[in-house]
């Protein structure tokens, strides 16, 4: 009689152990390696910002592409000024190109083309689709305006989730409204240039 009980006892002990373990095992994954998107994001942010700041884009007249032609043309945006003689002027952004870029990002079809040609969308192969947003701010941190209209603050809408941002310091080839800075009270331009900050944000 008592002996019978005993075995039940053991049974209980074992099952407790078993269930605890299975429980642990099941929630382990959360504890273990989680997916680290920031690696990709960081790289993409770096890559896009570099392409924008140090490359004139393709073709030489990509910034003439209108919203209706962005679907048919092959192009890659790049904001750097390009001089036929001396080549690319690094960190020197063309206002004209910036405006074109903004225009394309505003258009729902074009933004997808841009995304594709920038290499941010390989979903057809099975890769991730990256969302991005580009903005141009002056050193004080407010958006740069040209003829009182914001030059560049376009792309996908920035969410609350993990976002990686990469900044570049650039200067424009035309004089924007608010690219001067105030040093000791007076309002000057750094190195006689319209210096600004290009921010590229990338997320999933």
């Amino acid at each position, binding site marked *: 009689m008592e002996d019978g009980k005993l075995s039940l006892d053991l049974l209980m002990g074992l099952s407790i152990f078993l269930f605890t373990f299975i429980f642990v095992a099941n929630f382990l994954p959360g504890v273990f390696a989680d997916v680290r998107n920031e690696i990709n994001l*960081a790289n993409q942010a770096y890559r896009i910002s570099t392409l924008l700041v140090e490359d004139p884009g393709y073709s030489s007249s990509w910034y003439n592409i209108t919203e209706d032609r962005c679907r048919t043309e092959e192009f890659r945006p790049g904001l750097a000024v390009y001089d036929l003689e001396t080549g690319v002027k690094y960190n020197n952004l063309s206002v004209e190109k910036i405006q074109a870029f903004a225009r394309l990002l505003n258009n729902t079809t074009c933004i997808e083309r841009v995304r594709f040609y920038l290499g941010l969308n390989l979903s057809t192969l099975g890769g991730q689709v990256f969302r991005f947003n580009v903005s141009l701010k002056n050193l004080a941190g407010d958006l740069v305006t040209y003829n009182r209209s914001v030059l560049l603050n376009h792309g996908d809408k920035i969410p609350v989730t993990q976002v990686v941002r990469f900044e570049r310091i650039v200067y424009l080839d035309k004089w924007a409204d608010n690219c001067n800075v105030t040093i000791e009270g007076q309002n000057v331009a750094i190195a006689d240039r319209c210096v600004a900050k290009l921010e590229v944000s990338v997320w999933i």
Partner: protein
Amino acid sequence: MDLKGQTFTLEGVAASLLILIATYTIFQSTVVMSPSWSEFNNIQLKQLGYDILRVIDNPEAVNSSLRGMIGNLSCGDGNYYAPAEFSQNLSALLNALPAYGRVELIWFNGSSIETAVLFNFSKNPTPNAVRVSRLVAASNDNCLPNAKIVEVRLTLWR
């Protein structure tokens, strides 16, 4: 007899706890902010550094170019003073980042490598500072003797 049963149960519980704790101690402890993040901040900072060197080096301007800065560098009792205009530009940029910066001029005086620190940019960097530098073909015979090439080194940290 009864005791025996008890022990069985206890062992079960003990074992499971053991596992639980083992797992936690191993993993919870190591799940820290991933290192690539701090690295990434350095990348960001370094890139900004290069950008700064590029932006403040405006060949059309005199004192707003590295060449001009070196050319018009003045020096006395171990201190090196960059032209005011240059210092202004640089500090304006640094404030905007925001970041601290140290500027060194490095050149070869014919026998050994020498280093000069700009007066207003001589703070000592923290360990995780980044360095960017640019070689400028310029000379300044009374401050940087025999220099034909000067390495302008900008150290940044936050």
